[in-house]
C-alpha cells in the first residue's frame, strides 16, 4: 500500500523546480530577446486596446470649433447693441441655413436700460465674406432713455433729458469688393420712427426742451433712407487691425415720406494704423466729419450727428453733443500685450459739433483721454474695456466692437 504521507508525487518536486526555472528571470533571460520583451508589452496592450473616447473638455472644444467654423442651424446666443448708449445687452437668436451659405435668422436683444430689439432677416453669405454679400432685414427697436443735452458745444451734463425712440425698419443692403482693398456699399431702408416721453432718471425731454431747442420733438417721421459708401480699406479686418487704413465717404439721403424732415448728410472718415517695430506698438489715428448738406433742412435731434459714446468722445455719455455737423479726431498709442488676444491703448479723443459747417474747425474742441484693454481675435474685438476722463468726469466704456 502506498504511503499517503508522502509530500507530493515524486515528479512534483521536479515539476515545481522546472516551473521555477521557467518563471525565473535568470533562466528566462537566456532565451529572452529585446524584441520578445517589446512583443509582450504589445500583446498586453492588444488585450485592452479600445477606440479613443474624447473627454468632456475635448467634446466641448470640438463643439465650439464646429460652431465657429460652420455653425449649425439652431438657437444661438447673441450679443450686440440695441441702440447707442443702451448698455450691456443679452440676447438670443435662431437661425436656419438654406441654399448655399445663406441664412435667415430671428434674434432679440434686451439691455439693462430696458432697450429692446427684435429683428428677422436673411443674408448671404452668412458671415459677410466673399466679394458680394447681400442682406435683407426687418425689425423693431425701442430705446427708452436716449439722452439729449441740447444742441451745440455749450451744454452741460445736467442738461440731460431723456426721450424714448421707437423704430420699425425694413432694410436691404449690398456690399461689393471690387478688389481686396476697395469697398462699395449700398443700403436702402424704410425707417418708421416714433418719439415719446423718455424713461430713466433724467427728466423726460418735453419737460426741458421744445421743438426749437430739440428739432423734431415728438415727431414721427417715416423715411426712405438711401445711402452709399465708397472706400479704400486695406486693413486686414475692420473688427481688429494693427496696420492698414480706411479712407471712405458715405452719402446718406433721408427722404421723409411727408417731406417735413428730409435731409442729406455726408460722412467722411480716415483711419490709419501705423505699426512700429513689427507691430510691437501701433499708432492709430482717426478723423471723421459728418455734415448735413442743406442748411435749410430740418433734422430731427435724434438723427443729428453726435459726439459722445464708446467710439467717439469716450469720456462723454452717448449723444452728449449734437448738432448738424460734427468733427471727431482720435489718436491712440497701442501696445501689444499678446498678439493673439490682448492690446492695451492710451487714447485721446477730441471733437466738436456745430450748427454751421464753417464752424467745424479745430478750435474749442472737447477732448478726453483714457486707457483701455481690448480682448481680440484675428479679426474681431469682442470685448473692449476702457476708462476715459473728460470735463464731465470719468466714464467707463464696455463695448463688443473695436473703437475704430
Amino acid at each position, binding site marked *: 500500500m502506498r504511503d499517503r504521507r508522502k509530500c507530493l508525487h*515524486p515528479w512534483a518536486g521536479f515539476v515545481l523546480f522546472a516551473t521555477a526555472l521557467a518563471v525565473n528571470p535568470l533562466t528566462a533571460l537566456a532565451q529572452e530577446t529585446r524584441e520578445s520583451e517589446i512583443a509582450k508589452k504589445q500583446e498586453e496592450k492588444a488585450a485592452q486596446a479600445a477606440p479613443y473616447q474624447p473627454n468632456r473638455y475635448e467634446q466641448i472644444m*470640438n463643439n465650439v470649433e464646429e460652431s465657429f467654423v460652420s455653425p449649425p*442651424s439652431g438657437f444661438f446666443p447673441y450679443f450686440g447693441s440695441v441702440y447707442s448708449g443702451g448698455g450691456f445687452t443679452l440676447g438670443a437668436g435662431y437661425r436656419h441655413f438654406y441654399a448655399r451659405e445663406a441664412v435667415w435668422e430671428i434674434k432679440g436683444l434686451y439691455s439693462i436700460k430696458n432697450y429692446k430689439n427684435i429683428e428677422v432677416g436673411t443674408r448671404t453669405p452668412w458671415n459677410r465674406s466673399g466679394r458680394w454679400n447681400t442682406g435683407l432685414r426687418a425689425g423693431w427697436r425701442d430705446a427708452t432713455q436716449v439722452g439729449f443735452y441740447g444742441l451745440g458745444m455749450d451744454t452741460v451734463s445736467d442738461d440731460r433729458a431723456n426721450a424714448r425712440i421707437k423704430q420699425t425698419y425694413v432694410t436691404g443692403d449690398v456690399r461689393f469688393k471690387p478688389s481686396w482693398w476697395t469697398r462699395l456699399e449700398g443700403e436702402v431702408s424704410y425707417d418708421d420712427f416714433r418719439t415719446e416721453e423718455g424713461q430713466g432718471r433724467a427728466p423726460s425731454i418735453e419737460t426741458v426742451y421744445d421743438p426749437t431747442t430739440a428739432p423734431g420733438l415728438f415727431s414721427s417721421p417715416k423715411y426712405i433712407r438711401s445711402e452709399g459708401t465708397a472706400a479704400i480699406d486695406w486693413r486686414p479686418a475692420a473688427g481688429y487691425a494693427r496696420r492698414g487704413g480706411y479712407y471712405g465717404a458715405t452719402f446718406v439721403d433721408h427722404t421723409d415720406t411727408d417731406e417735413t424732415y428730409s435731409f442729406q448728410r455726408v460722412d467722411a472718415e480716415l483711419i490709419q494704423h501705423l505699426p512700429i517695430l513689427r507691430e510691437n506698438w501701433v499708432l492709430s489715428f482717426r478723423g471723421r466729419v459728418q455734415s448735413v448738406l442743406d442748411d435749410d433742412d430740418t433734422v430731427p435731434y435724434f438723427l443729428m450727428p453726435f459726439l459722445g459714446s464708446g467710439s467717439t468722445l469716450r469720456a462723454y455719455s452717448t449723444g452728449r453733443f449734437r448738432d448738424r455737423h460734427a468733427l471727431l479726431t482720435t489718436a491712440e498709442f497701442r501696445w501689444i500685450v499678446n498678439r493673439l488676444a*490682448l492690446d492695451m491703448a492710451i487714447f485721446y479723443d477730441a471733437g466738436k459739433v456745430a450748427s454751421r459747417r464753417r464752424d467745424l474747425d479745430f478750435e474749442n474742441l472737447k477732448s478726453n483721454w483714457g486707457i483701455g484693454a481690448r480682448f481680440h481675435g484675428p479679426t474681431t474685438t469682442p470685448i473692449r474695456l476702457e476708462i476715459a476722463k473728460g470735463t464731465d468726469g470719468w466714464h467707463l466704456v464696455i463695448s463688443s466692437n473695436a473703437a475704430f
Partner: protein
Amino acid sequence: MQMFSTTFRSRTFLCVVATAAALVFVNIAPQAQSRPKFYSDDPLTREPETQDASKVQDWDIGLIADLTLNLFSKPGDPTPGVRAQNINTIDEVPDSSWFTNRIYSRPVTIDEITRGPNVSDGPAPGKWTVIRPKTAGTAPGFTVRDEKGNVWFISMDARDYPIAATAAIAVATRLFWALGYNQIETHLTTVRPENVVVGEGVTIDSHGRRRRFTSQDVKEVFARANRSADGSYRVIAQRGLEGKVVGGFKYYGTRPDDPNDIIPHEHRRELRALQVFGGWTNLVDIKAGNTLDTVVAEKGRSVVRHYLQDVGSTFGTGSLNPRQGEEGYEYLYEGDRSAARFFTMSFWIQPWQTIDYDEHPEVGLFSAAAYEPEEWKPRVPVAALTRIQPDDELWAALRVMAFTDEHIRAAVKTGGFTDPAAEKLLADVLIARRNKIGLTYFAKVNPLTRFAFDGSALTFENPAVRSGLFDPPKGGYTATWARFDNNTGEAQPIGAATTGTSERLQPPAGIPTGSGTYLKVSIAAVEPASPAWAKPVEVYFRNAGNGWQLVGVERVPAGPAPFSVKPK
C-alpha cells in the same frame, strides 16, 4: 524510473530537496541577479510591431482642444528627465512605422534629396476630378483624382501671396524626408480652373449638414488662390496615401486602439527631435492636426504608419501670408511675457523684434540672426518637444549637420522659386541655422560617435571637429577600459587609461578575447572650451566570436531604460 520506485524515505527526501531548491531559486536568485544589460538581439535596428492593428479606428483630434491643452496644461508624462524610450542600446532610433534612418545613418545623394518621397512623376495631365473638399488647414485646395485614377491633395498659394507657401511645402517635404520622417509624395505643378471638374456625389459639411460640393465651391477655392499671369494656378499636389486614413497622432500619450503603440509619444525621440528640426526649418505649426496615421498592410499584418503630413508652415511663411515676427520665438501665449509687456507698455524688447530681415516675398521672414536653437519655440508648447533631453538633441543635431551645403541647396531648388535671390536667401539661412545647431548641441554633451573596436584600436568620430565648427580638443581623448559583466552590470578595469590626440585609441593590454565577453570603454575629450566633453561616453562592445560588435552607447544614462515607461 528505478530511482523513483524507492522507499518512502528516499522519495520524501527527493521531494523536499526539489521543492527547497525551487523555492530557494525563486526567492533568492532574483535578488542576486537582474536582467542583463544587453539582449542577444541588441541593438535593435527595427522597432517590432507584433500585433495586428486592423481595428484601429479613425479619430478626429480637435484643433482648439489640442491647442488649448498644450498651451495651458502640460499633457503627457510629468516625470522630468526621462530618456527617450524608443531608442536602441546604441543610442539610435530604430527604423519603425514612424521613422526611417536616412541622412547621417547612410549616405544620401543629391538625387535622393531632390526626389524626396516621390516615386512618380506627379498628377497625370488632363482633367482633375474633385472627389473631396479640403477640410484641414487654411490654404485653398481640394482633393482630386487624375485621369490615371490617382488621388492627390491639392493646395495653392493664397491670393496675392505667390510662390512662398507652395515652395515651402516642396522644400520642407524633402528636408523632413531626408531627416527620416514619413512624408507624402509631393509635386509642384500648375492647373487651370477649366481642367478641374467636380465628381459625382461629392459633399461638404456645411452648417451641421451635408450638401453637394459644386463648381461654385471650386470657383471660390480658386478665388482665394493666387492666379498666375497666364491664368494658371501653381499648386502643390500630394499623393493620396495607401491604406486606411485614421486621423493624426497626438504628441503625447499613445493611441489607445493601436496595440503596437506602447511608447508614450512624448518619449519618442524622433518626435522630441522636432525641437531641433523644427527650429532649423522654423516649423512652428507642430500639432496633431498636421499629422496623419494610416493603417497599412506590412508583412501580412496591419500596422499604423505615421506621417508628418503638413510641414508647409515653415521657414518664413505661413500658408496665407508671411510669418508673424514672434513665430519661432514665443508661444502664442506666455503669461510672464504678456505681463512684462503689459506693465512696460511693450518697451520690454526682445532680440527677435529688432532683426533686420533680408525680406523676400517668396521666402517671408526667415533669418538666422536671432535664432538660438535652444530658445526656439513652435506656436504652442508641444509635449514631445518639451521633453527633449541632451542625448536627443545631439541625435537630432547629428542629422541636421549631416546636410551638406549641396544637400540644402538641392532641396531648396525644388521649391521652384522664380527669383534666384529667394532661393539663395533660403539656402543661406538654412545653412547658417544648421551651423548654429552644430555649435549649440555639439558643445552641450560629449558628441563622440561612430564607435568601432577591432581588437587592436578603438575608432570614433568627433562630429564637432569634423564639422569645422570646433577645434580638436587641446587635451586630446582619453579612454578607460573595463571588462563588463552583462549579467551583473559590474565593470572590472583593464589597465590604465589610454590617451591620444586622434580619433583612434589603442587598448591596454589584457583585453578579453573570449566569445560572449563584453568590453566597456569610457571615452572623454579634454577641451577646456567645451567642458561637457569631459563627461565620458560609455561604449559597450560584445565579442561576437568573429569580432567586436558595438552594443551600447550611453551619454546620459540616468533615468528609466528604453521601452520601460508606460503611458500615464
